[in-house]
């Protein structure tokens, strides 16, 4: 379903969807919203992108990171090498992307790892209470207030986990269904 209108609109809409989903995620503690609905809104962006450009393009655009570099020289110190590689990968990406022969390795974020991270965050937000000798999922809040995000506390962690979980599941379903 590759139409020019959708393809153009989606380029503008993707950031809006994602920002709005994050906003919904954080307002969810006291108002309607939360991790689940935020995750769904965030996933719409990727679903639309997959609809216009196909799953491979979505993966290449959002879920893949190419790391560039060269092998470490024998007499080069390990920390110096790491620092150089970091600098190369942060500042020189555009330039290096034009030389495919020095591409070293590729980090691909599979939806399953997003799901697992989400689950881990949610479960761990509950365990915090257990470690403090309180029941599972006992909430801990900090005292200070951040303007948009509200008061940070362990339930935010839970919502964040749900958010990632929902995005991961929707991505996985979208990829599987669009490949068929």
């Amino acid at each position, binding site marked *: 379903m590759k139409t020019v209108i959708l393809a153009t609109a989606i380029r503008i809409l993707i950031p809006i969807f994602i920002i709005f989903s994050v906003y919904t995620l954080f307002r969810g503690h006291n108002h309607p919203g939360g991790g689940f609905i935020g995750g769904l809104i965030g996933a719409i962006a990727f679903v639309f992108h997959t609809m216009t450009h196909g799953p491979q393009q979505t993966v290449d655009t959002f879920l893949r990171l190419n790391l560039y570099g060269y092998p470490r020289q024998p007499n080069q110190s390990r920390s110096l090498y790491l620092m150089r590689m970091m600098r190369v990968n942060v500042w020189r990406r555009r330039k290096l992307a034009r030389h495919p022969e020095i591409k070293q390795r590729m980090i691909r974020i599979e939806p399953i790892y997003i799901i697992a991270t989400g689950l881990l965050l949610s*479960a761990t937000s509950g365990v915090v209470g257990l470690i403090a000798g309180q029941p599972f999922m006992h909430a801990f809040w900090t005292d200070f207030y951040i303007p948009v995000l509200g008061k940070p506390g362990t339930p935010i962690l839970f919502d964040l986990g749900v958010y990632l979980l929902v995005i991961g599941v929707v991505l996985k379903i979208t990829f599987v269904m669009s490949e068929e």
Partner: protein
Amino acid sequence: MNHLLIMLPMLIPLYGAILSLFFWRYVRAQQLIGILAQVCLLIATFLLLFDVNDNGIRTSQIGSWPAPFGITLVADLFSSMMVITSAITGMAIYLFSIKGLDKARQTFGYYPVLLILQLGVSGVCLTGDLFNMFVWFEVLLICCFVLIALGGTKPQLEGAIKYLTINFLASGFLLTGIGVVYGILGSLNLAELAVLVRTPVSHPALITMAGMFFLIAFGIKSAIFPLFFWLPASYHTPPIAISAFIAGILTKVGMYALIRLFTLIFVTDQGLTIPLFTVLAGFTMVVGVLGAASQNDFRKILSFHIVSQIGYMLMGLALFTPLAIAGSIYFIIHNILVKTNLFLISGVVAHRHGTFALKKLGGVYLQQPFLSVLFFISAFSLAGIPPFSGFWGKFMLAKAGFEIDSFIIVLVSLAVSLITIFSMTKIWNEVFWKKKPETDPLLNVITKQTHRDNRLLHLPVALLAMFILFIGLYAEPVVSMAQLAAEQLMNSELYINAVLKK
């Protein structure tokens, strides 16, 4: 510490599953995580059992919300015994799966799903909230559906669809029942419900009606008489490691919920429920065992026997004396171990001989005498021959029946035991004693690798047989613990006071 101990039987499988998801592509790592999780789970459940045994019923309020409002976790003796049995079975299944399940299935998320299934079992057993219980049953349903359909062969899909459709219906009934209960009484906390139904203003007729919804829902899930037909149609289709775990645990979890609810909440109209349960128990036993007698496939015989054994557990609930409930509890523990073990043995035999059909099998006694001994122990436990574990469960049930003069159901149960022996001897004769029928020698070549794997598969079977022997020969502590658990179930005040802290 208290809160941690109750949570651990759920947290360990949950974290095991999450870590397994991170190692999605590395089956070796998943196996390692799984075994670690099983060992930790076993230790944690033992600690929980000792703690509950020493200090009485333990509770924990999730998120520190007080009792009738938040979700309560309750660990009494019955639930901790269930959890520990599930942990033992899970351990055996894990050890079996490493060699006994094909690589393709293992790479498609078998290990995380199995751990989440165990999470669901722990959840059902430890929750003290009606709706939460429903949610855990959904977790079980989804995991079972995935496990039965995993691999996607034609018979598997057929079995999975049957399983899912009928269990979906059961979930619908369960949800309706929960809705009705909430509409009548305005609470979902089991302890508060138990208080509310005992007040004079409650509506006994409506509550009995809600109870029937639960009876149908859990009746489907635990395969009691008119509702069991999905079970023999689906349990023999998946590979043996999967069907052994599902067959061993799932129906008994439904039975657990039935016993929990019908001792705690739906006790207002026992003039109706007790005769109903007695009739259902009798028919479940007889129909199950007759179905088993007519089958000629190793796994199908065992599947029908699940139905028959469910009748005994229901019989304990039907007699409704402390001794009878204790008998039921003991029987559930014994049956989970024995049934899983028999399924695993059929898997070991099929791994070596490539078939489950009794006609094509034979001569196992000569080739694998050790396996034959293990089968002998499990089969005679199932039938209830004295030194083994099944005898004690049946003895307690029969004694409880004689004490309140319910002779007919006791006689039925004893007759069913005889037919159980008949089908066990049928398996013994056909699989172990009969000479192996002549087949094409090229058809079933046993390589050295198969031989070695087959020897490793004996390990979980031997582990379970050890536990079966333990609860049979040294039945005293288990029986007295089951009696204590039954006391806790019959005195609902203990449960109510523990949760509501009166």
